[in-house]
C-alpha cells in the first residue's frame, strides 16, 4: 500500500487529476518524507483534495484507492442518513458515505454531479461521496494549524487540522474517524 497504490490508480489519471504538486511554498525544499504515525503533521505530506459545499478538504493520498463516478447506487433503508447507499465496485460491494451529511454541510442540490473517492480503512474500503475532486497537493508542516476551537463539535476528531494554503484553507480529514458511522 502507500503512495504506489495511488500512483498505480489509472482512474485518477483518467479523471485528469494529474499528480502535479501545487505551488504551495516549500521552505524545506524537497526533503524526503519520513511519515510517522504520531508526528505526521511535522512532515511534508501529500493530500488528495476535494470540494464539498464550497469547502476545500483533503485526505492523505496514501489512504485513497481510487476515484470514480458511480452510475448506480442502491439506497439502504433504515440505515443512518449519512449512508448514501451501496455500490458495486468491480464485484465488491462497498458502502458509500455522503460526506456532506457526515460533516453537517448543507444538502447537495438534486441532480448535481457527485464523485466517489474510495478510501482504504481498517475495515476495508469505503466510498466517500464528494462534490468535486481536486488536485493532489503537497503540504508543509509550517502551514499546519490545529483545528480552530470554534469548529463545529461534530467535526471533532474528524478534522485533524488546517493547512493555511495560499488563498484558501485545506481541512485535513482523518479517514478512520470519517467512516466511523454509528
Amino acid at each position, binding site marked *: 500500500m502507500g503512495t504506489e497504490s495511488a500512483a498505480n490508480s489509472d482512474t485518477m489519471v483518467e479523471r485528469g487529476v494529474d499528480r502535479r504538486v501545487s505551488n504551495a511554498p516549500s521552505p524545506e525544499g524537497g526533503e524526503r518524507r519520513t511519515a510517522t504515525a504520531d508526528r505526521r503533521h511535522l512532515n511534508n505530506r501529500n493530500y488528495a483534495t476535494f470540494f464539498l459545499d464550497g469547502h476545500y478538504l483533503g485526505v492523505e493520498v496514501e489512504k485513497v484507492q481510487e476515484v470514480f463516478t458511480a452510475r*448506480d447506487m*442502491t*439506497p*439502504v*433503508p*433504515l*440505515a*443512518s442518513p449519512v*449512508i448514501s*447507499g*451501496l*455500490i*458495486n465496485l468491480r*464485484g465488491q*460491494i*462497498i*458502502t458509500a*458515505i455522503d460526506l456532506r451529511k457526515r460533516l453537517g454541510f448543507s444538502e447537495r442540490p438534486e441532480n448535481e454531479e457527485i464523485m466517489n473517492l474510495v478510501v482504504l480503512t481498517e*475495515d*476495508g474500503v*469505503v466510498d466517500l461521496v464528494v462534490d468535486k475532486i481536486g488536485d493532489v497537493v503537497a503540504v508543509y508542516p509550517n502551514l499546519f494549524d490545529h483545528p480552530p476551537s470554534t469548529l463545529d463539535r461534530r467535526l471533532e476528531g474528524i478534522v485533524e487540522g488546517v493547512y493555511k494554503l495560499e488563498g484558501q484553507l485545506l481541512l485535513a480529514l482523518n479517514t478512520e474517524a470519517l*467512516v466511523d*458511522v454509528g
Partner: protein
Amino acid sequence: MEEEDSILQEFLVECSEGIERLDQEFVALEKTPEDAALLASIFRTIHTIKGTCGFLGLPKLENIAHGTENILSVMRDGKMPVTPEGVTILLEAVDIIKDILEHIEESGSEPDEDFGPMRGKLDTFLEEGLKAKPKKKSKAVSSKGKTKKSKKVAVDQNEFEHLIEQAAAENKTDHPPVKTDEGKETVKTPPAEKVEAPQAISKPEKAQEKTAIKKEAPKRPSITESTVRVDVGLLDRLINLVGELVLARNQLLQTMRKRNDSSEAGSAQQLNLITTELQDAVMKTRMQPIKNVWDKLPRVVRDLSRSNGKKVELVMEGAGTELDKSLLESIKDPLTHIVRNSIDHGIETPQERIEAGKPEGGTLRLKAFHEGGQINIEILDDGKGIDVEKVKMKAIENGLITSEVAENLSDREGLALIFRAGLSTAKKVTNVSGRGVGMDVVKTNIEKIGGVVEMMSVYGKGTTLRIKIPLTLAIVPASIVVINEERFAIPQASLLEFVRVDHENGESIETIQGADFFRLRGELLPLVSLHRVLKMEAKGKEEDAVEELESNIVVLKAREKAFGLLVDHISDTEEIVVKPLSRQLKGIPVLSGATIMGDGHVALILDVVGLAQEGGVFNAETLQEKSGRQEDTVSETDGERQSIVVFSVSDKDQYAVLLSEVDRLEEFDSTTFETAGGREVVQYRGGLLTLVRLGDVLGVETCFSNDENSGRCPVVVFSKGNMDVGLIVGSISDALEAKMKLFPSSGRTEVTGSLVIDGKTTDLLDINQIIERVEPGWLEASVEQSTVSC
C-alpha cells in the same frame, strides 16, 4: 526451530485423523471382538502415536500411548480377550491422549497434569488380565507389561527399531512424519477400497520403487498420492472467485440477450456451461461426507447406553452424503445433542421395552440423503415417543402458553413446543416429557445455517427428527421482490408460497386495529408491508393504485410462524452470492446482507426473522408469553372476568391495568412534587415515591381532568418488593370488572393487548414493562416477590 514446528504440526494432524477413527473402531471392536484386522488397525494407530512421541519429546503422551499399546498388543496376540471393560479402559486412555494432543495444539507443550495414575490403571488392568489367563505368558509380553520407568528407554529403543523396520519394509525414508504417514495409510485400509482404482497421477519416479515393494505390501492402497491437503482458506477464496465468475457470467448473458447477437452467442453459451461446471466442481472441494460427523456418534451411543443401562443399536444410512464443510461443523453439536436426547429419554430400558412388547434393544437410526437441493438428516428412534399432553402441561406450567391456547393446539403444534426456549431447563423437563433439553438451542443452531427442524412422534412408538439444511451457504437460491423499483432478495429457505390477492373475486386485505390480515385458505395470515417495515413510502399516487400494487403477497415462515409480506412485484428467482454488510450498516435487523444482481446492481438481502419481528408478527405470541409469565394474575384471565382500573392520559385515549397489580390510587398536589436523583418524587407515607408521567412514556400529552388550577394529579401507585412507583395519569375513570377478551396490539411493547370497555377501545398496559423502563430493576423485584409468595 521452524522445521521442528512443522513436524509437530504434521504429527498433530496425523494423530487427530487416527484418533477420530479410534472411537469408532473401538466400538466396532466391542461388537466383533474377534476381528483381528480391526484390532490390528487400532494397534497401529496407537503404535504410531507412541513411536513419534519419542522423536518429538512428549514423554507424557508417550507414556499413556505405551500403556495402551501394551494392552492392545496382548489382545492382538490373543492372550487376553476383548471385553467391554477392556474397551472402556482403552477408550479412557484414548480420551486422555486426545486431551494431551489438544493441549499440545493450543500451547505447543504437554499439560502439567500428572497422568501417572492412568498409566498405573492401564498396567494394573494388563497384569490382572494376564493373571486371569496365564496360559501363555511369553517373555516379550511380560517384559512389556512390567515396563517401569527404568526400562522404558530400552523398550522404546525396541519400538523404534520396530518402527524403522516397518518403514523400511515399505521403502520410505526414515523421516518421522513420513512414518506417521505410514501409520495413517495403513489404518485407513478398510474404508478406502475405492481408491484402489488405477491412479493416473502416480508419480513416475516412484513407480519403480513401488513395484519393488509391491510384494511386501500389496494390500496397501496409496491414498497420499491421490489426495492433497489444501488450506481451507484457499478453498474459500476459490469459492469466492467462482462466485464472482458466476456473477460476471450472468451479466454477460444478460447483455448478450439484449443484443441478440448470434455470432457471440456460441462462445457465451460455452462460457456459461464451463462456469456452471466449474462452480459445481469447486463447491465439491468443500464437500465432505456426513460420515465425518457421524463417526463420533457410535462412541457417544455406546457410553450413554452403557451408563443408562440401555441397549441401543446405532444404524447409519447414507453416511456418504456430502455437504459443505462449514455446515458440517455447525450440525455437529446439534446432532450429538439429539442423539443424546434419544438415548437419554427416548429409548427405554430393556425391561420397559420387553413389557411394552418391543425387542429388548432399541434402534437409533440416522439417515442422510439429498432431496430438492437440500440435505435431509433424519434421526429416528423406536423409543417411547413423546406425550404431547405432558409437553403442553409443562408449557402451561412454565408459563409459555395459556391453558386455552394449549387446548387449541394440534398435536404437531404441541410437539413444536419442545423447541421453545423455557421448556428446556434441563431438570424441569426431564421429569415431564424427558425430551427438550436444549432443543431450542438445537433449533436456533440449525436455523442459523438456513435449515429447519421438524419433529414427529408417536407416543409409545418412537420419535423422528428431521433436519433440512441447504447444501452450501455461499450461493443460495433467492426470490427477488420489488418495491419502489428497488429489488430485494429473500432466501428461498424461508419461502412458503406466493399469493396474489384476487380483488375481482372478492378477496381483500382485512384490517383489525391497524394490523393487516389476509384469509389464506380459511386461516388468518398476518401481513407485513415491506414499504412500512423499510419506511419507504409507496410510490403509487392514488389510493387505488397502492391497493393494486399491494396485492402481491410473499408467504414466509419465521420461527414456525407464517406471515405474508406485501410487495409491489415478485420478480424471478436467482442464485445469489451472499455478501456481508459493512460495519456502518450492521445492526439493521431486517437486512442480512447484500448481493450483486445479474445486471451489476446491488440488491439487499432481507432477513425474514427480522422482518417478522419488525412487522410485529411475533406480537400475538408475546402476548401469550407475557400473560403466561405473570402466572397468578393474567394466566386465567383470557376470556374471563377480571377487575381492572380504567384511566386516561389525554382526552382521546383510555387505558387499563389489572386491579391486582395496583397498590393504591392517590391524588397529589403537583406543587408538592420534588426532584431527587433527577427524577420526580413526592413524599409519601414517610418515604419517597418515584413518579412516572405515563404521558411521557407513551408519548401523548397529559390532559388532567381536574381543574387545571387546583394542580391535583391522579396517581396510580404500584408496589413490588420494597419498591414503590407512582404513575401520573390524566384522570382515573373507573374500577370495574370486564371480560378480558384481548386483541393483539400492533407493535407497542408496553401494551399487552386491547379490549373494548363501554364501547371504547382500551389498551391494557403491561405495567411492569413500563416501570422497568424508567426504573430498571423493577422486574427483578417482581420476580423476587413472586418467589417469596410461592
